[in-house]
């Protein structure tokens, strides 16, 4: 059988911000949006082996073998110079994981885990792998009490969601904007599918959390906040809504000239949303 592999940019054994409890998080490489506000822009694209980063590496960790860029993690000092020079927002340091590789990681860290979360990039661009992995977890005697979550931008079409939801316990979904023109500007794509995903997940009982990124002068307008309140109310006023605040940390390019979102403004908007009837609004624990 031809088992799917995942292209993984990072694995965390401890995360308390990617779903309930402590989670092992797999960050998959590659995204179908191109948000200027992304704080992990190097996860957007898959490497095309152009080789531009190879001479920039100060430790000699990068080489070209048979036309492919190869990374030697044992001597890499994580300076990230390769990420800075990559012209397409890709990452030469990715690792291929098989389902068994991930199961081994889960066994090794099982006592510490409440579950696993697949994040990105955009997790669902590697949907086959997720389905295979979650199915394997659910049928493994020692692992089946782990919950399986996906962190998504919601662009996956409805039919595809239906193939993964039976083995998924919950999804954290980002909504970038309600005004479709604004959504285009912020992501290069339309928001129709995202909003449909939110409804679909809600109806399936799998919408663990909605996330909304507040960007001053863009997504914090009265109209946007009102649309957000209406949208959540139409699902359930108790839907967990996490407000994120746009910060410069990790961001590249044009969005670095955009102002950052300040705590008092986030608190004000949270208060507005609460008075609009939303009962489960969470604000950031830190601003960095």
């Amino acid at each position, binding site marked *: 059988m031809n088992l799917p592999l995942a292209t993984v940019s990072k694995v965390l054994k*401890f995360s*308390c911000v990617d779903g309930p409890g402590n989670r092992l998080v797999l960050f998959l490489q590659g995204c179908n949006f191109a948000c200027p506000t992304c704080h992990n822009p190097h996860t957007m694209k898959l490497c095309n082996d152009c080789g531009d980063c190879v001479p920039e590496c100060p430790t000699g960790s990068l080489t070209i073998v048979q036309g492919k860029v190869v990374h030697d993690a044992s001597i890499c000092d994580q300076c990230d110079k390769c990420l800075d020079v990559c012209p397409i927002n890709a990452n030469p340091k990715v690792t291929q994981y098989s389902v068994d590789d991930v199961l081994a990681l889960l066994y090794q*860290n099982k006592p510490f*885990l*409440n579950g696993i979360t697949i994040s990105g990039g955009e997790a669902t661009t590697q949907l086959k792998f997720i389905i295979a992995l979650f199915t394997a977890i659910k049928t493994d005697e020692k692992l089946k009490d782990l919950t399986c979550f996906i962190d998504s931008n919601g662009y996956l079409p409805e039919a595809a969601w239906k193939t993964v939801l039976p083995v998924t316990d919950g999804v954290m979904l980002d909504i970038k904007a309600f005004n479709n023109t604004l959504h285009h500007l912020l992501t290069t794509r339309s928001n129709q599918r995202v909003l449909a995903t939110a409804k679909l997940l809600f109806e399936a009982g799998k919408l663990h959390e909605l996330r909304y990124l507040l960007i001053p002068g863009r997504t914090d307008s009265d109209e946007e906040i009102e649309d957000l309140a209406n949208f959540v109310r139409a699902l359930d006023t108790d839907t967990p809504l996490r407000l994120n605040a746009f910060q410069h940390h990790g961001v590249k390019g044009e969005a670095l000239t955009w102002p950052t979102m300040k705590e008092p403004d986030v608190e004000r908007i949270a208060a507005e949303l609460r008075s609009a009837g939303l009962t489960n609004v969470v604000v950031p*624990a*830190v601003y960095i």
Partner: protein
Amino acid sequence: MSELLKRFKGITEDPGLSFTQKARYLSLEAENSLPYPELDEETAKALEERVICDMYEGHVPFKPRYVMPDYSVVLEKGSAFLELEPATTLDEAINSLMIAYHHVPSVTNMPVFIGRLDNLLLPYCDEVSDEDLYKKLKLFWRYLDRVLPDAFMHANVGPTDNRVARTIMRIDAELKQIAPNLTFIWDPDVSSDAIFSQACESIIECSKPHIANNPLHQPLFDDYGYGVASCYNVLPLCGGASTLTRINLREVARRSKDTADFFENVLPKYIDLNFRLTEARIDHLFNKSGFFESFLVKEDWISRDRFTAMYGIFAMAQCVDELQAKEGRAGKYGHDETANQLGHRISKVLYEVVEMRPMENCWRGKAMLHSQAGLSDDDGCTPGVRIPYGSEPDPVTHVQALAEHHAFYPSGVSEILTLDETIENNPAALEQLVKGAFQLGFREFSANVSNNDLVRITGYMVRLSDIAKFKECGGSRINTTVLGAEAAETGKILERAPRVMSHELAPRYSQ
């Protein structure tokens, strides 16, 4: 004026010290002007070079380092010496304890252990409403912090889920005081999920309590049980520890040619010298000081044969890195498998030697190995077996790297995990981390949450805001702030992702 008198004068005139702090430092200086218990030349030299260390406990051991009284004696029987009747109400019980604490010595002259408070107070709570219990315990808590301001002072609750334990943890999280320090003793077969969750939420609130893994501790002690005192020292109840000495493993590694020399020659030599130091101090305490003539022994608060000797080590990280370098290996302690395994091997050797060596005047005839959390001026040495401040890996990797050590340190191994404040929105993650750590063999668990004002420095608590104030204008009500300020500057402690503190860390006047 002689040097000594100048020093005394300096203490009396130091504007940064309160008058009680001055009195304490004066008494320490006086004690240290007396001759040390007799040591052979080799031991004296190792002590002088600080390869072995007496924690600056003082030249003349006239009291045990840690006294762990069975306070139920004074509650149930009263005290002839203190002219106290048995307690019959909660008010009387708390009052008797408040009096008792003032008569319990320790290395700091303040009590380092104030009892397993729920066991002690529950018998007096039947008629007390929840609201009254809360009010009375809150006043008690305020009294402890204001009158006995030492972060090494330690209260214990658990493992059962009960009103006193719950109320104490609630008050502790509300008041966010440095003192007392608090341990919740957890036992998955006894403690409810609810009280375990409360303990975890309280850690998020104020970096307290410390959690002790009862199934690992209890079997090492008898029915009389144990208590957790000071900076995570697990000691027999109704006794304590006579002394705490320690080996600076970095210095041992520096004096070794290579790993083989370390294990075959140098480490055994210093292990022996540290035993000799310990024996000399215990001999003085038991045979010359007259301490055991005290009413504490006569009235059975403590028993002469229940005092252990804590045999400490520290700077494991620097020791392993030093040996790795001598072997031409780059891998660092805490991050590299070979380095970590070398550390585990050192702990195992230490444990075996300490278990084998007969000791006079020691509970069960032997000392207990201890991963010692550090003084405030440890000169680049990391406490115990910890991973150096600022270089800790993620909490799971951190626990995995250290878990194997824990089996070797029966009298305690204090490890502090630094968690960032995002944990606030997700206490379940902390719960799972504690459970995972205990499943892997952690004896105890402490965490600092990085936005807490109240943090642990080496095992004791300090308030970051107090340190800032202390530096600005001098002076702190709390003894550990002085210690903490010193630790923060010399130990890179505040670089640590987040951390915890305790109180014996200022054993000398250091101006």
